[in-house]
């Protein structure tokens, strides 16, 4: 009869540059229990809402996470705009959508590189990040920054995309799409990748729903939830269907993210083609009235929820951010027991954990 041992995973681990600690109880090579610990880099950004005015908070929430910073800013601005009854111009809605989808692409590509790295596929890691550089170049050319692009303001956006830039973006996206098609076969049909992902870390549809999973974690298990279909920003003007896979294993979660990259490219093409001329922001005066609002949108990792309570002054009473990684922790704790120790790094990567978001 084998004995149980407890193995510490992290907080610093080669597979994940961010600190997370898991206490893994193993029997032989099999994980039987997993207990997480966070908080190594907690920043208390929610509390800053009582010290920075509501306009300054746009820049604070962008720093919740570098990878989806643009969407944090967008969600926060949409919450304040709803509270203040501000309608942003249609062109601003399109621009927000374009930048959000660019962020989704670079987030998924970053994840794909880290995922490849997790099982020693260095070449794929390099290729993926090389492709991602094109997206970062687009972000830099259109906003002035590569990662935290700070384009969202309450009332719209502060940068525009002109027709010359639009043509160049379309050309770059063609390049990205072609290169992605080249590596798609390697990612999804490679023997090693399949060995490490097919049938591993299975989360059923019922479990995903019951555990509140979100994003590719839920969509990979057949849960058809994608907040973009609710039609916020410019999504109401675009044609798309949520990408859903049914097998619920690590492979399905990969597949969702790969397909979402192509979907995002298509959404940007549509948005650039349909974007009307016009203003990119409206002036916003005064402070948000007293009230409470919940705003949600679909980040690359899933649904992000902003709760805001204002008191009529320029400072908010409460800002609460429920990030997608936080929602996916219970699902991670569900898929780890029963897996082999060698699969733990890969399984953690398949939820695309963002510790920065969790430690907001």
């Amino acid at each position, binding site marked *: 009869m084998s004995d149980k041992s407890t193995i510490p995973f992290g907080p610093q681990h080669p597979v994940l540059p961010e600190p997370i600690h898991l206490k893994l109880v193993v029997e032989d090579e099999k994980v039987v229990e997993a*207990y*997480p*610990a*966070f*908080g*190594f880099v*907690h920043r*208390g950004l*929610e*509390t800053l809402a009582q010290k920075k005015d509501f306009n300054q908070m746009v820049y604070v929430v962008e720093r919740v996470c570098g990878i989806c910073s643009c969407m944090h800013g967008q969600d926060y601005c949409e919450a304040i705009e*709803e*509270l203040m009854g501000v309608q942003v111009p249609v062109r601003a809605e399109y621009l927000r959508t374009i930048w959000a989808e660019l962020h989704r692409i670079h987030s998924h590509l970053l994840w794909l590189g880290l995922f490849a790295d997790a099982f020693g596929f260095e070449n794929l890691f390099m290729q993926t990040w090389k492709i991602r550089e094109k997206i970062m170049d687009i972000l830099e050319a259109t906003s002035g920054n590569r990662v935290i692009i700070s384009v969202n303001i309450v009332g719209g956006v502060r940068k525009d995309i002109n027709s010359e830039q639009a043509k160049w973006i379309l050309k770059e996206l063609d390049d990205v799409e072609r290169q992605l098609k080249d590596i798609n076969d390697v990612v999804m049909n490679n023997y090693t990748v399949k060995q490490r992902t097919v049938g591993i870390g299975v989360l059923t549809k019922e479990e995903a*729903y*019951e*555990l*509140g999973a979100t994003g590719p974690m839920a969509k990979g298990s057949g849960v058809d*939830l994608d*907040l973009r*279909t*609710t039609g916020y920003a410019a999504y109401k003007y675009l044609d798309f269907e949520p990408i859903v896979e049914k097998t619920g294993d690590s492979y399905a979660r990969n597949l969702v993210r790969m397909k979402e990259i192509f979907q995002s490219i298509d959404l940007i093409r549509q948005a650039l083609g349909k974007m009307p001329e016009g203003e990119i922001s409206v002036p916003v005066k005064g402070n948000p009235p007293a*009230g*409470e*609002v*919940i*705003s*949600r949108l679909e980040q690359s990792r899933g*649904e992000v*929820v902003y*709760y805001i*309570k204002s008191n009529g002054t320029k400072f908010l*009473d*409460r800002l*609460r951010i*429920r990030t997608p990684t*936080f*929602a996916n*922790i*219970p*699902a991670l704790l569900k898929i780890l027991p029963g897996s082999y120790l060698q699969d733990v790094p890969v399984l953690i990567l398949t939820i695309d954990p963002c510790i920065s978001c969790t*430690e907001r």
Partner: protein
Amino acid sequence: MIVNSREVEIGNLKSEVKKYHDGGYRFVTETCLNLEDKFKIIYTFAIGYDLENIHIITDGKNVPSVSDIYSCALAVENEIKELFGVEFDGLAVDFGGNFMLGESSPISPQADIEIIRREKGGKNE
């Protein structure tokens, strides 16, 4: 959406949450707010894309955990426990104050109370 939350008595909390669970709602999150000398905890559920909220007003002691109904609530309830000092009864998994905070972290850093730091080698009560 503008929050339209319905207040429920603490004694009825679990039966109300059970109704959402049995009605096919998924658990989205719990949000804790500081009031004068009390806490307000908002429970958010969703069915499809529609949200519904209920809330309780509590002094922060002996709040019934809903993690036996929605097991995923254990993460946010452990977080609220550590950041606000709210005590939950019947947490499915209690991380013992080591989920978001470390041994040398401030106690209840988001609550409107005096923050006490552990002295070197000492233990918090």
